[in-house]
């Protein structure tokens, strides 16, 4: 009995030490994500570099309205100066960072975690994930490329909820989500690998949540390309206010991707059903 009491006593003291003086643990739960992380480029290559083929909406759970929006989109819109420096929205930008730096911001007195900050070299975005339980801003507040994010630790997984997004890419070939979209993310560290899970919800452009993952690796060296200066210029002189777009039914690239890969146009036009394995059987059956 005395031995058990002594053991309990030792464990209790140990637990108190682990929490710091007075039982206070300033570090809090979770793991450190600090460091410079780099992308794994063999994933989802069509989303990186020059971007995806035109009218390739395959596997995306888009609404009919989102599809019509995409088919009206003319890549010449990139020549409009105001579009040239448009930032990749937070729900898309992780496909493209060459460098992602993560660090913590702590209260200097209490050492409590205030925020987890991220710097993404692509479009030089600094993102703040508030960890101090502050509320999201009111509806009338501005929307931003990185949105307003709050996070919490679920075990060793950092879960982040983001609101106040601008319109931004679902896929960089004309498919966009609206400013009503919200984003849930999980950052999961496995030693020197970081898995990022994003779950995009937009009742206007998506029939079901769009779930994506991407992996990053910890870099011992700092890497390069930390800057992304962008200066818009007039590339093509047009009448004031002109917006390149295809009228309904007149997109000249409707068949290009589908024909190249010998798939039906209906598949290229996407929709939730095209994301699931059984759709392949349906396409094969249709081809016979």
């Amino acid at each position, binding site marked *: 009995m005395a031995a058990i009491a002594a053991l309990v006593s030792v464990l209790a003291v140990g637990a108190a030490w682990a929490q710091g003086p007075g039982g206070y643990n300033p570090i809090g739960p979770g793991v450190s994500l600090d460091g410079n992380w780099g992308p794994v480029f063999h994933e989802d290559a069509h989303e990186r570099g020059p971007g995806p083929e035109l009218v390739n909406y395959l596997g995306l759970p888009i609404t009919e309205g989102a599809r*019509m*929006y995409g088919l009206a989109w003319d890549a010449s819109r990139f020549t409009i100066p*105001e579009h040239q420096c448009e930032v990749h929205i937070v729900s898309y930008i992780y496909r493209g960072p060459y460098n992602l730096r993560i660090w913590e911001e702590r209260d200097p007195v209490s050492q409590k975690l205030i925020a987890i900050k991220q710097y993404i070299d692509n479009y030089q975005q600094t993102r703040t994930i508030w960890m101090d339980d502050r509320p999201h801003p009111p*509806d009338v*507040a*501005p929307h931003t490329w990185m949105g307003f994010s709050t996070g919490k630790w679920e075990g060793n997984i950092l879960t982040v909820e983001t609101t106040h997004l601008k319109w931004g890419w679902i896929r960089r070939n004309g498919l966009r989500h609206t*400013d009503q979209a919200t984003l849930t993310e999980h950052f999961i560290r496995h030693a020197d690998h970081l898995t990022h899970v994003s779950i995009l919800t937009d009742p206007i452009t998506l029939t079901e949540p769009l779930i994506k993952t991407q992996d990053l690796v910890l870099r011992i060296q700092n890497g390069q390309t930390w800057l992304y200066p962008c200066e818009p210029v007039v590339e093509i002189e047009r009448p004031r*206010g002109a917006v390149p777009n295809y009228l*309904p039914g007149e997109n000249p690239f409707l068949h290009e991707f589908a024909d190249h890969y010998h798939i039906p146009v209906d598949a290229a036009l996407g929709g939730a059903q095209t994301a699931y394995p059984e759709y392949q059987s349906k396409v094969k059956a249709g081809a016979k």
Partner: protein
Amino acid sequence: MRSVFAALVCLAAALSAQPPGDLVTLKVQGNVYVISGAGGNIAVQTGDQGILVVDTGLANMSDRVVAAIRKLSDKPIQYVINTHVHPDHTGGNEAVRKTGLTYVGANVTGNLTDAGVGAQIWAQDNVLKRMSAPTGRQSSTPFGSWPTETFVAGRKQLFFNGEPVEIVHQPAAHTDGDSLVIFRRSDVVVTGDIFVTTSYPFIDVDRGGSIQGELNALNNIMEIAVPGLQDEGGTYLVPGHGRVCDQPDLLEYRDMVTIIRDRVQAAIKKGMTLEQVKAASLTRDYDGRYSAKSGFGSGEMFVEAIYKTLTGKKLAR
């Protein structure tokens, strides 16, 4: 001509009859704040000289609007500016004006508070014409809510609270009396209902609005607004309804209005009637985001306004 305004008055009355929600006050930047929830958005500029208010919301929200303004400053309200005529933006004119004052000089000392003059109300001249009526006829709005000062020469400039304030007329856009209010040091543009984030533009054709004027105005704002570092922030826009925006937000909206105009124009060139154009669902890609279920701001009404102003046709209602 009177039908749309009558409908707007009815809408304002209906909105007035609803239980009021909470007003939300948010600092935009510099000296400018926005008060949301009283009908149209209200912008407030504060400083050492006093208070300038852009639009006044619905009439029945006036007490709460004045209380919200008073939380920002105890200085006198000297100026009210109306971006346009509609009652969700001018309904509180009388009440807000009465709480303010106009400083005077010459052979009058002090101010005219005792005479009940209150703050000055500025607007483009067509706003006064729409709110008032010739002598002997019934006006659509009470005398006390009318603009006390108007301008006709394209723009009116003030220097107030240490910054230039420009009121710039945008002809034949949402109505024929729209103005942008530009706070040049704060770098904020109040757009009135030329730009809203809650619906398609409501082009009040019966009150002088047109699709080309609407697009001209949107492109004017595009040129005034300068995005900040990495295409965000910089000049902020207070829309007539909805959230505070920057130029990239306006860009998405301007593109949408232009694209739908292009579609309706192409349909007209093909000889399609209004009914055929409506049946073609030319706004389907944007309806989920912008279409009100019916009436003002609906896709159907937007397409009808475009068709009407591009063809110059008077359509039966």
